């Protein structure tokens, strides 16, 4: 994992405390413990704060997984 990937993982760990890195990497957002639309929005705000990336909920759900976001961010770099 490079530095940006670590920052991305930290965003997820902030929103889903008590969840392991493996769970985050291996699950769809909607399958993560505690997922709901409010938490999704809060994740979007954290991604905005950390990376300046402005996504909406539909885009987030379309990406679906941590790995997909990671790839998307890598392409944008």
């Amino acid at each position: 994992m490079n530095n940006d990937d670590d920052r991305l993982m930290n965003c997820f760990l902030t929103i889903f405390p008590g969840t392991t890195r493996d769970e985050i990497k291996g699950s769809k957002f909607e399958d993560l413990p505690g997922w709901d639309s409010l938490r999704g929005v809060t994740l979007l705000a954290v991604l905005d704060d950390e990376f300046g990336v402005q996504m909406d909920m539909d885009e987030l759900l379309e990406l679906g997984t941590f790995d997909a976001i990671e790839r998307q961010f890598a392409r944008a770099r």
Partner: protein
Amino acid sequence: MPGPADAVEEKELTRLAQRIFGPADQRQFASVSGDQNPIHVDALSARRTQGGAPVVHGINLLLWSFDSLASALLDLPPLRSFSAKFSRFVYLGEQVELRLVQQEPHCSRLSFSVDNDIRSEIAIEFGDPERHLPPWVDRSLAPQSPASAALDPSLEQIAERGGNLAFCMTTEQAATLFPSAARWLGVRRIMSLAASSYLVGMVCPGLHSLYSELSIETCPDSDALDFLAYRVSKTYPRLRLVKQEIAGGGITGTVTCFVRTPPAQQATMESLAGLVDPAEFTGSVALIVGGSRGLGELTAKLIATGGGRVLITWQSGSEDAERVAREIRSAGGACATLAYDAQKPAEEQLAGLAHVPTHAYYFATPPIFRSQAELFSRERLKEFLAIYVEGFWQLSQALRARCPELSMFYPSSVAVAERPRGMTEYSMAKAAGEILCADMNVSLAPMRVIAVRLPRLPTDQTASVTAAKFADPVDTMLPIVREVQSWPR
């Protein structure tokens, strides 16, 4: 491996308290905190919010949690910080269970749940306070006195908000209502946390707010402040999310809240006038169950615009029904209102009808979105079936006895095919309703039932915190109304 005795001990360790919050608790906390937001205290207004019914103040739950924790564990170390996430609503009458999820020398974690469905989580750190008063606090600003009605600023206005709020809760009230928490934290921290509920619910964002998260550090420097200072630190208009910094009464921290989308407004009679021929539905009498708001309101207006006589029913919102009726009458339409409960026998409720309905539209529904821990709840399915199947059948039989060529509309849902998460029982009940409609069309001619799977449309039931994509209600309903009104040919 733990044995049964261990399991009992563990259970006793983790379950701290249980409580059912009732209307009196709600009024009391609203009064002492000043947070009289309608989502908490006005059942009629709350039914038009994302909650669908009055919800317990998150800060009341938080303070009850602290009080229960301090009561159960007498030698709690000083609080250094905590964070709380209010993930899901807690409704009046629900049994809330507070659990101690983790207890270590330097930290604790609490959760409260209803039927094992976690509604909120609190993470606590113990230790000596380290924070100093934030430099943005302006002691020279006079504290604002509590407002009696919730403010309703725009997102642009919210971005610039800040000020000092006088505490509404007194030291005596803090010590009386939350005695153990007051001994642990000090009364001023209780007052300050209660003031954060007032801030969110009444001032900023105010009327359409939703308290989502709270991250707090104890701050002895701010103990001398007799008010809660606040300033909006960031807004995310796209997400309708607001972050505010707060300080006062011995705490400092960040509040995260949402600006809820306001209740859905249906098209006005004036805006519909050009879409429907004024004589298109003349001669028909349409009974619209649930016509006081949402798609029922829109359907009533469409038919009245076309010259049809409409009778709209309401279960709890008589004022909403009268508002719709007034608008229709003002535009020259004919509209009456009727109290009707889809779970009670239809025949008795329709006994005094002045005009025999030739058409009927059935929009009766219980709250659709409710959080639950399990995929399937038998009780939820029964609740949906009682209205979507039994209530519809009862009504159809009572009306068919009066008008054998009755034409009815049954609103099914795309959820039957799409199966969104958390809507298992809803989808099952709508599917059962569709089967009933199909069999009625086979066996009960000349009456006819049109069942359509509606897309997600903007109504109070589908209101979400964030902007959601909806189909256009007029574009969706007008062809359906024309099809239903076309029978008998």
